[in-house]
């Protein structure tokens, strides 16, 4: 693969994927503005706002990915932190569990440091084994047992869902050298970001155009079978097309794309269920047109760990 810009010293694959992302953003911005100019309406207004947010999100993701690995780790850790911070008040974990909430925040830098130092075994055990005992114990030590089952279940869940899952993206930096693979962890990271992002967009698009039958009518009426199937199939194809970012064979890439799309959908559905129970529409309004951090990152944090393990299995375990 040739570099687009010779003087820019990042891998050719990364240059190409950034070029593709820019093309999609420019094309959609032009298309929506043209549509808005010819026939203004509510849908196109929403699309314009969403696209503007995508520009900003893509810029942030690309810059943090291409920067020094420490910056990437800090950026990912911030996303975990933002998810927890957004959800704790909504889950009513605030005044009583204050100190334990602080411990949960403290877990985030530790988990990402373990990833950065490559202490993989401890990384894998730290939250689901150690914190799973330690945090409920801290809650019990306070001596107030009223409603403690709720906080005992919620706090380790929050860590596994939003910190443990997401931190597997930092673990991509610890993959051993794979012969013939030049895009590096940055390539894999952009690959996943691209797939999860395009999965949301395509499920939205297929659902809006063809959607008839809801998958989960009681949880989220906007998710339709047509959107789900269309999204999963097209993401599998895109995953094959973009496989130059990965060490995967075509069929492996297709399977990875399929899993990412399905896991993304599952994460999305779980988040919808949580929001429905809490009686809120969006988890926040940090990202205009999309909602809060959870509304955008739900699929991402659910797909991260499966993605890591698939890549590891295909390119390290089975290749050895």
């Amino acid at each position, binding site marked *: 693969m040739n570099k687009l810009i010779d003087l820019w010293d990042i891998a050719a694959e990364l240059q190409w994927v950034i070029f593709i992302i820019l093309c999609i953003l420019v094309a959609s911005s032009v298309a929506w503005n043209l549509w808005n100019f010819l026939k203004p309406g509510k849908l196109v207004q929403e699309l314009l706002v969403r696209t503007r947010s995508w520009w900003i999100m893509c810029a942030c993701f690309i810059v943090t990915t291409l920067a020094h690995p420490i910056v990437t780790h800090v950026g990912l850790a*911030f996303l975990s*932190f*933002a998810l927890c*911070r*957004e959800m*704790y*008040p909504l889950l009513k974990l*605030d*005044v009583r569990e*204050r100190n334990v*909430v*602080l411990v949960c*925040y403290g877990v985030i830098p530790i988990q990402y440091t373990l990833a950065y130092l490559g202490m993989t075994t401890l990384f894998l055990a730290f939250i689901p084994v150690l914190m799973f005992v330690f945090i409920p114990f801290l809650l019990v030590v306070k001596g107030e047992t009223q409603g403690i089952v709720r906080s005992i279940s919620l706090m380790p869940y929050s860590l596994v869902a939003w910190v443990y899952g997401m931190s597997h993206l930092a673990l991509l930096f610890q993959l051993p050298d794979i012969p013939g693979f030049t895009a590096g962890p940055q390539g894999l990271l952009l690959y996943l970001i691209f797939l999860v992002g395009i999965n949301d967009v395509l499920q939205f698009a297929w659902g809006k155009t063809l959607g008839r039958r809801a998958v989960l009518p009681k949880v*989220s*009426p*906007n998710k339709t079978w047509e959107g789900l199937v269309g999204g999963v199939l097209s993401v599998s194809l895109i995953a094959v097309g973009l496989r130059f970012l990965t060490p995967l064979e075509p069929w492996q890439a297709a399977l990875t794309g399929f899993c990412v799309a399905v896991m993304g959908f599952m994460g999305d559905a779980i988040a*919808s269920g949580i*929001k*429905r129970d809490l*009686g*809120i*529409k*969006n988890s*926040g*309004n*940090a990202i205009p047109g999309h909602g809060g951090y959870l509304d955008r990152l739900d699929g991402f944090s659910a797909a991260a760990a499966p993605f890591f393990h698939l890549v590891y299995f295909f390119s390290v375990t089975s290749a050895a």
Partner: protein
Amino acid sequence: MTHGPIDSELFDAHVPKGRQWLLWVLYKLMWRTFFGVIIGLRYHWSKTPHPLGPVIYVANHNSHLDGMSLMTIVPSHRIHLTHSVAAQDFFGNSGFRRWSMKNLVNAVLISRSKREADVDPVQLLDAMIRQGHSLILFPEGTRGVPGVMADFKRGVGHLASRHPDVPVIPVYLDGLYRNLPKGRSIIVPLGGTLVMGDPVYFPEGTSVDDITEQTQAAIHNMAEELRQQNQVPDHGR
């Protein structure tokens, strides 16, 4: 009106050089970043441009962070001319607190008790507005019960009725008490929202009680509006 002390005796309007820079760095840079990135405070800005002259900011009060967050929405060119109004008995009871309230928070301390010896707070604040300074008032008078708004004291009414040309900007603060509740000293980031209302001008002759009531109602409405924005509509997401 009786002849009281003249304005400059009550309040020295001179701000040392460098205070503006210090406050700008502290609030527009450090606290603003801290609120935005760490605490996750969301700002709902008012649609109308900020008035150029003196302003009375009025907000509900549940946490020590309230005053800090209010300072971050003050325009840069007026930050050294904007003073939180704080209680003498709480913030003035040690030398360090007095020093930091004056230099780092730019606050003015007033007495909450009604003793003869004290300067009348309204007279002092009135003198400050007349010399072109802005005020940040928490008319509930204390941080009170978390998440519950107490009835407003009439100080806002007294000040606004004397200055029909000075607008009142109501601000609703939601959730900051979770980050730093009363009686705690560690900040645990848990988000929050700051809703900045449109400036309200009260025409000459509006009574003190009316102004107080209307300001309180404005903040109540903002709270209600924010609550409704986040609810699920009846049909689906």
